[in-house]
């Protein structure tokens, strides 16, 4: 290798390492803190004798609601993801493949993007009033519905992109093969969308799982999700750093698992062997 190329390669490696460290260090710090005694955290010790006291307290102490919060988050994320994915996929299919006029398609997609760009905080107040008035204040239903609506534009756009990778000719082949519109969707289009569904589903799940502002406004103690619970560890006169770190570490797990799954399906070829 020529010296200049070697220097360039070295610089690239250094830059990448720096970027990776910038992303990973906070995680390492939090995960490490979750295994430290409170005193080690406050003293900022890098060498410490590990303990699982925070996890123990979080999961098994009587005063802790964390398992419930975890279950709430899981349920809300799962149901809102399912709703969002169904509506988003069907919507994207209707906009892209049925005889939707171009102006309507652009108007709807543009509008959904505009809505997605609106800061959620501006909507929280009206949602709060609205759900109280229909008797759904601080309920799971309220949270599931808001999360579904908030992430729908994302689902619509992503599934639209994945859908455009499914060749129209395959649907035409199905039409020639006497396959009705519903069966064409379920037996030809949907199986080919699987990697897209997995990737989009993982992202939607993670968004719902991490959502804080709306969940804070629309839940009470019994319906609170993990991010809301996390915030409660930081109070005016008492910061429970250790418990907070342990809770944060646990809350990373589903996102991490899903991302691994989604990356694999994103990388896999979408329509291998369909054409040519």
């Amino acid at each position: 290798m020529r010296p200049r190329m070697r220097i360039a390669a070295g610089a690239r490696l250094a830059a990448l390492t720096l970027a990776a460290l910038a992303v990973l260090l906070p995680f390492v710090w939090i995960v490490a803190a979750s295994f430290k005694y409170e005193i080690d955290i406050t003293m900022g010790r890098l060498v410490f004798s590990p303990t699982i006291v925070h996890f123990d307290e979080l999961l098994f102490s009587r005063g802790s609601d964390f398992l419930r919060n975890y279950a709430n988050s899981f349920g809300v994320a799962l149901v809102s993801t399912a709703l969002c994915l169904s509506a988003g996929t069907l919507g994207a299919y209707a906009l892209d493949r049925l005889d939707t006029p171009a102006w309507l398609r652009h108007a709807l997609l543009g509008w959904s993007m505009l809505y997605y760009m609106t800061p959620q905080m501006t909507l929280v107040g009206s949602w709060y009033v609205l759900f109280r008035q229909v008797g759904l204040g601080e309920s799971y239903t309220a949270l599931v519905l808001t999360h579904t609506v908030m992430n729908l534009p994302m689902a619509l756009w992503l599934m639209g992109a994945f859908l455009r990778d499914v060749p129209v000719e395959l649907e035409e082949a199905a039409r020639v093969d006497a396959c009705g519109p519903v069966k064409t969707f379920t037996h030809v289009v949907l199986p080919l969308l699987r990697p897209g569904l997995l990737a989009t589903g993982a992202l939607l799940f993670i968004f719902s799982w991490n959502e804080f502002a709306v969940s804070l406004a629309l839940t009470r103690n019994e319906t609170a999700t993990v991010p809301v619970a996390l915030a409660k560890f930081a109070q005016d006169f008492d910061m429970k750093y250790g418990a907070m770190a342990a809770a944060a570490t646990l809350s990373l797990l589903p996102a991490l698992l899903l991302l691994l799954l989604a990356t694999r399906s994103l990388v896999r070829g979408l329509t291998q062997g369909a054409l040519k």
Partner: protein
Amino acid sequence: MSSIALRGLVRRFGAVTTLHGIDLEIADGAFVVLVGPSGCGKSTLLRLVAGLDQPSAGQVLMNGRVVNDLGPAERDVAMVFQNYSLYPHMTVRRNLAFGLENLRVPPGQIAERVDEAARVLELTALLERKPAQLSGGQRQRVAMGRAMVRQPQAFLFDEPLSNLDAQLRASMRVEIKKLHRRNGRTLVYVTHDQVEAMTLADIIVVMRTGRIEQAGSPAEVFERPANLFVAGFIGSPAMNLRAVERHDGAFTLGDDTLRMAAELAPAPARSLQRAVLGIRPDDLRPAAGAPVHWPRLTAAAKVVEPMGSECIVTLGAGPLELTARLHGRSLPSEGDALELAVDPATLHWFDPQSERALYP
């Protein structure tokens, strides 16, 4: 069994008209090839026949019945797509069976037809594979099998061989011809390759910019092209088409490179001051031994492309360039001066204004 008739078919996409009133009768059991340069509307026409697209005006008839409002399945046609369009998530067996399942054919019969098609197309060993695990030629055969098992009224092929290499294309051409011989169903085939058109068709339909230029048997289209476009499009190497002028009772080509008495031209051409003369490369023969009344020309071989028992020679004759195909053992080399003659009966004459062919 099915005859197909197209009556005044028009297809517009917004302001663009891709088909300008197509009229065509396709007899039951015929092998019809739609051929033309890309963008001539041949694939659009096939999609209208298939029922994948709706005409802006005009009618599609099958067995005398208007089928404009029927989908492809109700028309009972099977189609082979240019990109094969195999279902990538299904095995070859399932790809073949899918259409029959949708038509609620009894499972026993499906298995029978799939096995039969697989045997004929030599796909038996591949039945449990997915399309991604097949070569291009194998995918092509699966696409054909999918059409075969349906046993439809008519087969529609949309440039099915354009993704294959030359050798495979030649062998698949034979397969397609065999398929047609075996079941005798009406077959409409789209291609831009005139060799495919000539070798496969009972009837060739030459299209240009959304219009039919000529429809006829391969021999008819080759021997008696209706106009300049068909003459230039059909035949490989292409026909030499050159302007000729009449002086003193004789037509001359270039600077007197080729000269022939006006009586040798067909009657409608004789009265013209200018005409376009067409000479097939095969019709230029060595002058030695040619009848005396054949017009002759002397030319230099500029480029020689040997092809075994024959060669294609690009000739420089005065200011003109002509192409000739010469047969035989002793082929010319580049730079040789050649004395060539042409049988006046094989010449093609065209009116330069209307571009129509002039026949006696």
